């Protein structure tokens, strides 16, 4: 069975390591915060100027001067730090953020990512996505393997305007965990009950399957 959004987030949470500074994008990536293993110290960065994102506030705590990059009201954990946008992107550009998790419209087998613009649809802008993908030490993409029409989003070459080139390291989709390698998408794990053949059918880019592929454990 394909993973739902929460299960994708839960699988990505297994990539976290104690002491990581992490930037989570909008959508499925945000859900990863709900699955941080107990006892693990993870500091979440919000690119509008916060290290140490806490949970949503209770009603009485809502503060219009405290929001995340999705413009939602949030809290700051004890030990948090605030800073301005240029310091925030110095952290990102300077490689001080250990892991970035973000969504994508398309990923290519060379690690290119398209996530910000669909020609013919209104362009809202790239926000911080181009800065994040160009500089994070490790980038995991959380995405659906195919679009609603069943067409693959893991391609030989991206068809949409790019956000970054050769930057994606790992993809966690509803069907599989895959690594971007010089030879194509390497299948690492498959969703429970999903066959290798189903993943092949849903992947337009080159897929490398070596040996027995274990199921994702959640």
């Amino acid at each position, binding site marked *: 069975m394909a993973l739902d959004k929460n299960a994708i987030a839960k699988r990505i949470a297994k990539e976290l390591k104690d002491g990581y500074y992490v930037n989570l994008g909008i959508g499925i990536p945000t859900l990863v915060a709900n699955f941080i293993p107990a006892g693990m110290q993870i500091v979440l960065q*919000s*690119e*509008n*100027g*916060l290290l140490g994102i806490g*949970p*949503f*506030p*209770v*009603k009485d705590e*809502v*503060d*219009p*001067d*405290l*929001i*995340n*990059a*999705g*413009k*939602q*009201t*949030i809290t*700051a954990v004890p030990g948090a730090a*605030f*800073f*301005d*946008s*240029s310091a*925030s*992107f110095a952290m*990102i*550009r300077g490689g001080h953020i250990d892991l970035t998790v973000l969504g994508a419209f398309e990923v290519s087998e060379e690690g*290119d990512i398209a996530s910000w613009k669909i020609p013919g649809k*209104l*362009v*809202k*802008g*790239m*926000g*911080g*996505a*181009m*800065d994040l993908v*160009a*500089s994070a030490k490790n980038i995991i993409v959380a995405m659906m393997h195919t679009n609603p029409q069943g067409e693959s989003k893991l391609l030989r070459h991206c068809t949409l*305007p*790019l*956000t*970054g*080139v*050769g930057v994606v390291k790992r993809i966690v989709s509803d069907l599989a965990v895959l690594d971007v390698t010089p030879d194509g998408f390497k299948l690492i794990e498959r969703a429970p009950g999903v066959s290798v053949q189903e993943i092949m059918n849903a992947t337009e880019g080159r897929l490398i399957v070596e040996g027995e592929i274990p199921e994702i454990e959640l």
Partner: protein
Amino acid sequence: MCEILLTMNKIVKNAFEAIKGIESNMTIMLGGFGLCGIPENCIAALAESDINGLTCISNNAGVDGFGLGMLLRRHQIRKMISSYVGENKEFERQLLSGELEVELTPQGTLAERIRAGGAGIPAFFVPAGYGTEVAEGKPVREFEGKMYLEERWLKADFAIVKAWKGDTNGNLIYKNTANNFNQVMATAGKITIAEVEELVPAGTLDPNYIHTPGVFVQRIFQGTNYEKRIEFTTTRPG
């Protein structure tokens, strides 16, 4: 303890006095991220003026009828330099009809272009946007095996920022994530206007906690009636 306080005449009465000298077709910077930390008083004063043809450097473009949406509604903006411009129907309409020009810039590059403008650095290299349409027409160069593209500084005739506390010397302290683009923009205006929630005498704020040293600020006033609209109120039970 030094008894002589530095006193300078940076105080203006209100937003109307603060924006004196802003003329049509000028370039202005406005702090804020979404509606968080925007200079509400000065935007409202601009919206009551006849100034138009503005180039606005701001991370976002407000929402319909609030923030920069107030200036868009009155067709006062000719061009936006921003990283993300969603949440605004009038903006979309003017963009599609060709009334409005937009230069989309990656958010970190936008912040750094402003920092460079304030710090006197005309150009610099960043990896963001390499290989994308953002790189079109820009020189690229390899450093230590990685490709970077050249970006240029941004400066403004006026930078308008919003701070939490400020003193009569123009020293500023921002609150929480309402800092965002304000601190960096304060450095990049030929004239920087600061509107603050609380204006105090010089010598009151702890010099160790100043975000923006007063040298960057030419005009300061205590704003009134801050609405601080929230775009998405999200809460947990309890």
